[in-house]
């Protein structure tokens, strides 16, 4: 009897927590599907309302949200690829070679410490640098910046995965006449492929969600990412709630898909700062 009571209290608490976690997102979803009359209804229409896709049409056909979406995707994918190539090579050397005075360890810690910088601290100098380079308001500037801040993360994730691969394997390949890079490519990378994929997904999530740098470095529709596009609509005088909610829902979808894909690596990735506030 006492046990069933304790058990029901546990479930009740969990259900309340779950509702608290999901309800706000559900509310945005309903707003994105409601006609304007229903959005402002009092009392609110929680469950039943005639659904409409007009806001999605409005956001992605009449307005420029498709363009933001494309920019977000291009920037996220390109910067992830760059960070993966550079970061994997760096991580491999940090995991395999010993430098004098334990420099390899110190170097790794120093690389990690750059992740601890408050973003705003680097935003101002980056803005000034991009302005002088004439790169303001281009996708390229965002790709460079995102590659830069994903690098430490890639290096630390991959260093961990490389450390788990026994050295004998690639040494055997090298005895058979493979070069070191060849051994990395043919022997080691296939072994760490799941880790590499998870790292890539984390980079994609971070770049997709990033807001501050994109806000600072871009001004026009040509180079804006989806978060900046949404934010620009929020702070305007007259707010189109339906359009914004529709854009918000679309921004969430790829992230949730990605998150499910990397569930197994969530803790490791997040402790290294894959998702930032």
């Amino acid at each position: 009897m006492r046990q069933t009571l304790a058990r029901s209290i546990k479930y009740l608490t969990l259900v309340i927590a779950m509702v608290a976690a999901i309800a706000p997102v559900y509310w945005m979803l309903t707003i994105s599907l409601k006609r304007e009359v229903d959005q402002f209804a009092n009392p609110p229409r929680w469950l039943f309302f005639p659904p409409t896709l007009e806001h999605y049409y409005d956001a992605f056909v009449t307005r420029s949200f498709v363009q933001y979406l494309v920019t977000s995707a291009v920037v996220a994918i390109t910067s992830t690829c760059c960070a993966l190539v550079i970061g994997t090579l760096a991580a491999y050397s940090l995991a395999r070679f010993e430098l004098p005075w334990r420099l390899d360890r110190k170097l790794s810690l120093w690389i990690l410490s750059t992740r601890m910088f408050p973003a705003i601290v680097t935003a101002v100098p980056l803005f000034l640098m991009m302005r002088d380079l004439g790169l303001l308001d281009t996708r390229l500037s965002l790709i460079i910046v995102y590659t830069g801040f994903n690098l430490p993360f890639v290096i630390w994730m991959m260093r961990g995965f490389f450390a788990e691969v026994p050295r004998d394997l690639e040494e055997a390949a090298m005895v058979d006449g493979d070069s070191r890079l060849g051994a990395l490519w043919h022997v080691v990378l296939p072994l760490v492929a799941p880790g590499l994929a998870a790292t890539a997904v984390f980079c994609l999530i971070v770049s997709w969600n990033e807001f501050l740098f994109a806000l600072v470095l871009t001004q026009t529709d040509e180079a804006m990412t989806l978060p900046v596009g949404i934010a620009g609509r929020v702070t305007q005088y007259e707010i189109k709630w339906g359009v914004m909610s529709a854009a918000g829902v679309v921004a969430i979808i790829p992230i949730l898909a990605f998150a499910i894909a990397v569930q197994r690596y969530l803790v490791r990735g997040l402790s290294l700062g894959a998702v930032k506030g």
Partner: protein
Amino acid sequence: MADNFFWAAMAHTFIYAVVALVFEFFLGLALALLLNSSLRGRRFFRATLLVPMMIPTVVVGVVWRLMLNSNFGAINGLLRQLGVNTEQLTWTASPRLALAAVITVDVWQWTPFVFLVLLAGLQAIPQEPYEAARVDGSSSWQTFRHVTLPLLKPAILIVLLLRTMDLLRVFDQIFILTEGGPGFATETVSLYIYRSAFRFSDFGYACAMSFVLLLITNLISTIYIRLLQSRESVA
């Protein structure tokens, strides 16, 4: 540094960080302990509880503007249905409630992160100390206090470190929810730096403040890391 606005922003940042950290930690710990027992549907609960953390912070801002809007927001709508007078409850537009509102949003978004890391920490604890405690006949509170907490300490310190760093630089959500307003009520250091640089074009001043913020966060993270290392050498 004689700028009152800067110190006010500093004060907001610290209030924000401390209050949010306390709530996130205790809620996250409670949820982690709950889900560490053998419950049916654990994986399902775990996955759904993580949703707020995965959402882009800008979208979190949008979500909560929809929730907190004083006219058609879900919260005031629900309160009205329960018969509460919501005239005074303008949340993000009220100087008294705005800071509490943005803190609530942070707690909503980041408690799942604390929960996730602590749950992983709990699951990494071996069974033997628990069996020993049971043999010794210690109560469940004693077991928690003397077995679970000490073994969970590294995970706790890591999660507190990461959350503190993120809280001290908070920007996105507040930018969307209140833009630091009403007036100056929710202006944090990051927002103030942003405003100085990109609204008033005072880059030198912004860089100076950035440097102070960097020093402070560095100091705090060093303290945490020292604590972490001393734990490791004891264990």
